[in-house]
Every structure is written in C-alpha cells, then in structure tokens.
C-alpha cells in the first residue's frame, strides 16, 4: 500500500464520517462540524491526488475550499445562532420550513 492510497483511504473515511454525521445527528452545530469534516476529507483527497499526479491544481483547489469553508462556517454559525435566538430550538428535526 502506497502512502497516497493510505491518504485517500483516510480522506474517504473523513468524508463518509462527516456525511454520516450530517445524516444522523440533529444538533445544528454538530451538523456544521460534520460539514467541516467532509470538506476537510475532500481537501485531503485533493492534496493526495495532487501528489499522485504531480501537479499543483489540487492544492489550489484545497486552498479555495478552505476559504469557502471558513466563510461558510462564519455564515452558517451566524444562521444557526439567529435561528436559535428566533425560534428557540437547536435540533434540525424541528426545522421543516423547506417542506412548505
């Protein structure tokens, strides 16, 4: 097993555990954390692939993703806090506005 394959496996593990977290957990904060986990899994994948191919595009992408993730956390955390303030709940099962 090469080192790149090991990195890819860890990347997939990180992504899947993030995905699983998003699907299973209800707490909004945890959801955000799980999202971060998925993003970081993908980042790790990008960098590992980059290393396999020998380019720099993957690293650039991962930098972009880091930037987007940072802004997403800022916005998402803001949304979560404001939802909590307005509605008074923190579980995602109680937020079914998308149905309407």
């Amino acid at each position: 097993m090469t080192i790149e394959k090991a990195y890819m496996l860890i990347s997939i593990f990180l992504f899947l555990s993030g995905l699983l977290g998003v699907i299973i957990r209800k707490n909004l904060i945890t959801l955000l954390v799980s999202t971060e986990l998925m993003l970081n899994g993908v980042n790790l994948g990008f960098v590992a692939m980059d290393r396999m191919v020998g380019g720099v595009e993957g690293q650039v992408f991962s930098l972009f993703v880091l930037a987007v993730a940072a802004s997403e956390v800022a916005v998402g955390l803001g949304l979560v806090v404001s939802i909590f303030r307005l509605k008074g709940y923190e579980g995602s099962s109680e937020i079914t506005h998308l149905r309407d």
Partner: protein
Amino acid sequence: MEFLLVLIFPVVAFLVVGLLGRRLGDFPSAIITVLASSLSFLFSLYAALQAIKNPVHVPLYTFILLQSKPLELGLLFDTLSSVVATLVTFVATFIFLYSIGYMRNLFGQWTYKFYAYLSFFLFSMLLIVLSDNLLLLFFGWEGVGLASYLLIGYFHEQRKATNAALEAFVMNRVGDWLFLLGILMSFITFGSIRYQEMWEKAHLVDPLMLSWACLLLFGGAVGKSGQVPLHTWLPNAMAGPTPVSALLHSSTMVAAGVYMVARLHPVFEASDTALKVIVVVGSVTALMAALAATSHTDIKKIIAFSTMSQLGLMFIALGLKDKLAGSFHLMTHAFFKALLFLAAGSVIHTFHHKVHDIYEVGGLRSKMPVTYLSFMVGALALAGVFPFAGFWSKELILGRAYEASFGIGVLVSVVSVLTAYYIFREGFVMFHGEERKGGAHESEGVMILPMAVLMLGSVFAGFGVWWYGSLMGKEVHIHGDTVVLSLVIALVGIGVAYSVYVKRWLSAEELYRVLRPLHTTFREQFFTERFYHKTLAGGYMRISKGLHTVWERVLIDGFINLLALLYVKLVRFLWMKLDIMVVDLLVNGVARFTFKTGRTVRNFQTGLLNHYVAFLLAGMVFIFGIIIKFMR
C-alpha cells in the same frame, strides 16, 4: 333621331323624377312629368305627320343570338303606331296634368314616386306601340306590367290596393307566359320576330304552327286586356288612384293587348282558328262584363267593366278581320274612357277619396256642373249616340258584326244596349235625384282643363273616321240601317236608365228584389272570381296542404327523423362503449395514478435536512453507479 325623342322624354322624366324627386319636391316632379309627356306628344305628332306619308324605320341595336338569324331591334313608325303613339301621349299628358290636382292632397308624402311610375308607364307603353319586333314589345309589355303593379298598389297602406296590385301582377304573369311562348313559337315559325317579315311570311308558313303562335300571343293579349278568363284583376285594379285607372284603361296597358293584335293583324288574319278564338273570347267578355257592369255600384268598377266590355268589342272587330274598326274604336275609346274616369275621379276627389259607391252620392248636377257635363259627354260617347266619338267606331263594329253573322250582330247590339244602360245608370244616380251627401264642390282648374280637352276629343274624334280610313287604305262604309239601329240601341239603353233612375216609373229597389239572383250572378261575373278563389286558389292550397302532410310531414320529416333517431342511437352506443369504457377509464386511470404517485412521492419531502442529505447520498450513489456501470 328626332323620332327617338318620343321615347326618350318619358324615360328621362322617369330617371330625373325617380332619382332626384326627393330633392326636387313633389310639385316640380309633377311639372317635369307633364312637361316630358307633352314634349313626347309634340314629337310623336311630328313623327306621325312624317310617318303617315311613308313609314319610318329606326334601327336601334342588333342583338345577335343565333348566327344566321340576327335579332334586330328597332322602332317602326307607320300609320297605326304613330297615330296610337300620338294618342297615347296626348291622353297621358292630360291625365298627368289632371293628377296634379287629384294627388295634391298627398303632396309631401313622396308623391314624386307616383310621377316617376307614371313616366315609366308611358315609356313602356310607347315601347309597345313603337317597337318593330316582338322582343322590344315584350320589354314594354313587362314594363307596363311592372308599372301597373306599382301604381295599382300605390296606396300601399290599404290592403285592398296591395292585393289588387298582386292580383294584377300574377294574372298578367299568366298571360305573359303565354305571350313569351308565343314569341318563341313565332320565332320558330317565322325565323324572325320582326313584324315586317312576319307580315310577309304569314301566308307561307305552316298553318298549324301559325295558329299555335297566334293563340299563344293572343293569350298574352287576354291577360293584358282583361279578357275572359284572365279578367278578374281588371275591376279590382280600381283600388289604385283614379288617374292610374284612367291611364290604364284608356291608352295604356289594357289597350296593349288590342294594339298587339291589331299590329300583327296580317298574321292573325292568316289563321282562321285564332280569329275564331278571338271572336269567341271577345264576345264572351263583352257580354259578361257588360252584364257585370249593370249590377255593380262602385263608381270606378262600373267603368272598369265597361272597358273590359269595350275591349271585347274591339277583339270581335279584330277577329272579324276588321282592323280599321278595332283600332279606331281603341282610339275613340281612349278619349271617352279617360274622360269618364277623370269625371269619376273628380267626384271621388271632391269627397276626399271617401266615396266609392254611386248610391252614396246624388244630385251632384248643380254642384259640379263641369264634371256632370264631362261625365254625360263621356257617357253619350260610350253609349254611341250621334255625333259623339263612340258612335262612329261602334257603328263600324256593329256593321261588321251584322255582315259576318246575325248572331254576333245581335250580341254586339245587346252589349251596346247594356252599355248605354249601365253608364247612364251610373250618371243618373250620381248626378240626378236628391242630394245624399253634402260638401260637394267643383274641382279645381288643373283637373277641369284636362276634362274639357278630353271632352272635345270625345265629341269630335269620331269625325276622323274617314281620314283614318284613308290612312289605313280602306273605304269607310257607314250603313244607313246600322246607323239607325245603333242609335235606337243607344236610346233604348239610355231610356231604360232614365225611366228607372230619373223618372222612377219602375222602382229600382223593386227590380233589385225581383232580379236578385240574376243580379248576384252578374255582380260576381258569373262566379268566375269566386271560382278562381275556391277552385284554383283553394284547390292549389288544398293540394299544397295535402302535399305538405304527405310529402313534407310523412316522407321528408319521417326520413329526417329516422336519420336523427339512428344517429342518436349510434351516439349513445359510442358514448356507452367508447367514452365510458375506454376514454373515461383511461383518463380516470391516469388521474388516479398521478394522484397516488403524487401522494406517495410527497412523503419524501419531509423538510428535514438529514433526510435530504440522505437522499442526496442515495442519488449520488445511484448516478455514480450508473456512470461506473456504463463507463466500463
């Protein structure tokens, strides 16, 4: 060209008055009409003076229908046509003048139409008179029919008038069909419908064909001239204004039939059968109409029946090959018949068109002296008293009738006695005796003048008999015995009327009571009118009703209903089978399916973020699965 003017003036007057009459007003329209007819008279007088010496033929138009036989339309001015045209325009002018007074109370009610129709009437009659062929004559023939329809029905608010106009129109159509067939027959027989060729070939063609052509043509004359059996329209046509009656009866329309026979006399003379039919029809009409006239009390109807009777006499003369007597009686008759109508119209006018029965008035002699004089002069002329116009022409007919056969002579004598009786009966009842209705006064000058002129004509026209005879190239024989006879006849008739209605030696009421069935028979014209109503019209109605029931209701409606029933059955079947079983099932099935899937699928939309992410995962796995499966 100046000959054409005779025809052009009335037609121009017709167009001008007809198109611009509303702007011009009624009185100027009347003036234009009178002016046009008087100019037409002057030119026809001029034409007559030219044409009497040598006939003038004016070609108008070549109308090629068949390659070998061109139809040439033209005008022919010979002695007969130019003299009759002069007479027609002369009488018409004075009748038009008279109608200004007669129609004055209607001015402002589109009366210009009346004058336009009158001009058209005159134009059509001149076309009949002056045509040199049967086709152009037929145009005039139909024009006169149309004009008479319009004029008889002029008082179109009265049901009587419109009915009479319709009757005149329909009755004339019957005659006109015969006439049209006669023209076709003549064209087949002679190969031409120009008079000149017909006159020349009359003795050369097949006699049977000739007889048929003559009889069919005479059928047209029967319709126009109100002879038996197409006579019932003529008395009813009295519903029209009086000047129209005068025009219709004196010089146009009803005279057209006689004129046509006189015009084609060489042709008719070649066919003995046709002549016999003419004599029989003329005799029957003359007698029947004279009898009917004795029992009617309508002011104008008596005179109308008199016209029928006199036209019958003219036909007798023509049938006995005496063109001179027939056509000369036509001319003298025009004067005194117009005069009688105008006098009758004067009486009607003075009572504001309210009076139609002779027994409603009486003793008008002192109130309306000129009208009285006119009527009496007209009556004397009609009765045939020397030296009035009717005497000369009637004497010719009487003489010819006795020459031909004693029977016809007696018939003509009887008709003449009746004529003298009924016309003086009317005159005595209206003008003598006690006054029954007040308010009578003499008519105005514009009505008096034409009466005076026509009075002169009625007195003196008869003296033209020798002149007219020489024009026609015939010796005029005045027989001493028939002169005496006709005088006696006239005086007997007048005497009877005088003794009954003036002296009252015999009570008219008593006579009426005794002769009542006879009176009714005469009054109903031997029930011909009733017969037409009951049998012809009624029978036709019954046949129509029968056909309506059998053909329309049973056959056609049955068929249609059957079709409808079948169609309904078919549609119901299709509805049951196709619509409910197939279409509805399909549509409802689709709807139900959609509804069910919708309800099922709706459950996926939970609004829960977790679920959506799970679905996203499932979808991605599915799509990646497909991609991976197909990429390999």
